């Protein structure tokens, strides 16, 4: 099976040691859980090892060789990430521990900010019904703690944002609009422009959760037009333990710090402190140094293949997967039913076989999918289902893996007496 637009996955898969692993009784691993986390190429593992074996030291503030090397590597990773998202300035890239911290950071900054940014009891916060919990709970907490009102866009039956009442949802009272660029459960790619335009009209800050976008497509923060963009290293071939918040320079300068501690200060006395300029103001304590270096190597790897080529590959795989999945009796896709404006995560239900059972039987065949509410429970509530099974693809996924999945689903149906 070959499809137009596919990458040379034979070559790529050689870079990923885990893809060589055999499971159970010698089954090859079919890893279709990429929306949860991606696997890591040898190049990233080597970057980590060489950092620890040769250069490890705490960054900044050191005059010795190791400290200078570690600082150059850490700050070099910032340069790479800044270029990767086309940031106007490297100082706009803040390293966090994951996308969740990035989003909480914004919510907290806005809660503690002075006017005109401050979210207070008169303010409205707008999110959507397809957000990951990490882009819901921080705003719920902010709303509870400030008295602000939380509003959201609902969803259409085919898994798209319902923007029909955009003027009523985003109003003059709206201080911040935060939404996901690509849904991790539905796969939907959202129409950024319409939302950003309306948000800018009312002077609201726009936050984009790009956790499922950065790994899979060209991400250009300038083209997006948002004020903040959050994403996470482990889903884009990088290590766990590192996330990114990109923010517009003026905002990072104006907004107050979140976590306090070493690295983020300018000068400290017992009675008061002043803070370092961004990005350091938002990086309290010893940063995830090795993880930043690893993320830098991941970005190099992605650039080496090309984000356009990766997007094309995933589009081809997704189109093929949608088509083949719909062959399976009783399978219902939750989310857009075509590959149009959708990412490479496909959620579905299979008759009344519970996703846990689907996942378990697939696992027995070496096929790793995720089951549950995928940290987006409101989506399950919206579609009246307890959970979904989700297959999600990446640059190393192959049509043969799609075939294995489909075969596996037929087996699931037989196992539970449905086929």
């Amino acid at each position, binding site marked *: 099976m070959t499809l137009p637009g596919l990458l040379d996955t034979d070559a790529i898969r050689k870079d990923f040691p885990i893809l060589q692993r055999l499971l159970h009784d010698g089954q090859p691993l079919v890893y279709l859980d990429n929306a949860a986390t991606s696997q890591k190429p040898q190049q990233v593992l080597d970057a980590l090892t060489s950092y620890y074996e040769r250069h490890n030291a705490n960054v900044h503030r050191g005059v010795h060789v190791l400290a200078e090397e570690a600082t150059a590597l850490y700050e070099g990773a910032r340069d790479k990430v800044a270029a990767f998202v086309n940031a106007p300035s490297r100082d706009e890239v803040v390293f966090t521990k994951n996308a969740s911290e990035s989003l909480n950071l914004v919510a907290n900054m806005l809660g503690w900010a002075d006017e005109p940014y401050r979210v207070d009891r008169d303010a409205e916060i707008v999110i959507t019904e397809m957000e990951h919990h990490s882009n819901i709970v921080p705003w719920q907490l902010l709303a509870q703690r400030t008295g602000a009102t939380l509003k959201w866009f609902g969803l259409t039956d085919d898994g798209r944002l319902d923007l029909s009442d955009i003027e009523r949802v985003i109003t003059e009272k709206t201080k911040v609009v935060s939404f996901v660029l690509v849904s991790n459960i539905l796969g939907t790619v959202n129409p950024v422009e319409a939302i950003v335009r309306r948000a800018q009209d009312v002077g609201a800050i726009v936050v984009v959760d790009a956790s499922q976008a950065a790994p899979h497509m060209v991400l250009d923060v300038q083209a997006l037009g948002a004020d903040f963009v959050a994403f996470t290293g482990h889903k884009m071939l990088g290590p766990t333990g590192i996330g990114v918040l990109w923010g517009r320079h003026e905002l990072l300068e104006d907004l107050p710090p979140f976590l306090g501690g070493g690295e983020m200060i300018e000068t400290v006395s017992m009675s008061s402190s002043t803070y370092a300029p961004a990005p350091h103001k938002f990086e309290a304590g010893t940063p995830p140094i090795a993880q930043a270096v690893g993320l830098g190597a991941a970005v190099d790897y992605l650039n080496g293949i090309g984000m356009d080529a990766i997007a094309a590959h995933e589009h081809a795989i997704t189109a093929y997967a949608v088509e083949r999945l719909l062959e399976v009796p009783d399978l219902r896709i939750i989310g857009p039913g075509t590959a149009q404006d959708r990412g490479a995560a496909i959620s579905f239900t299979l008759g009344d076989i519970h996703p846990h*059972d689907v996942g378990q039987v697939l696992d027995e065949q070496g096929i790793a999918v995720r089951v549950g509410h995928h940290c987006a429970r409101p989506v399950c509530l919206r579609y009246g289902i307890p959970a979904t099974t989700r297959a999600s693809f990446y640059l190393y996924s192959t049509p043969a893996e799609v075939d294995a999945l489909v075969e596996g689903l037929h087996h699931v149906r037989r196992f539970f007496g449905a086929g």
Partner: protein
Amino acid sequence: MKLDSMYQEIILDHYRNPHGKGLRDGDAEVHHVNPTCGDEITLRVRLDGPVVADVSYESQGCSISQASASVLNDLLVGKSVGDAQQVQEAFLELMQSKGQGEGDEEVLEDAVAFAGVSKYPARVKCALLSWMAWKDATAQALAQRPE
């Protein structure tokens, strides 16, 4: 196939035809969730003197959690609270045995079929959901009793 050790025929039967499902009168009601997978159960316990007179429930979840609630209903209803607690403890122990335990068929009856589940850490919580809910509800029902 290794899976068969988890999906015993007896489990699949209970899953397809759950016993005692539905909410009926009770002395205490609890709602438990398995946050790692979203399985949910609302469970009521009715006591009649020292006896577990009824365990009724509404639940949503996988075959394991559904079958487990059904087996619980079979096993505990009609027993004295003390005996039922012993069954609950035996079941808990079996589930925590990491595939090592077989379960005492005298005490656990049909529930020994869950022995294979204990090999699957992610599914142990599914199997335990209703049993933890029962324990909680029973404690509440007992606490409400006039001295």
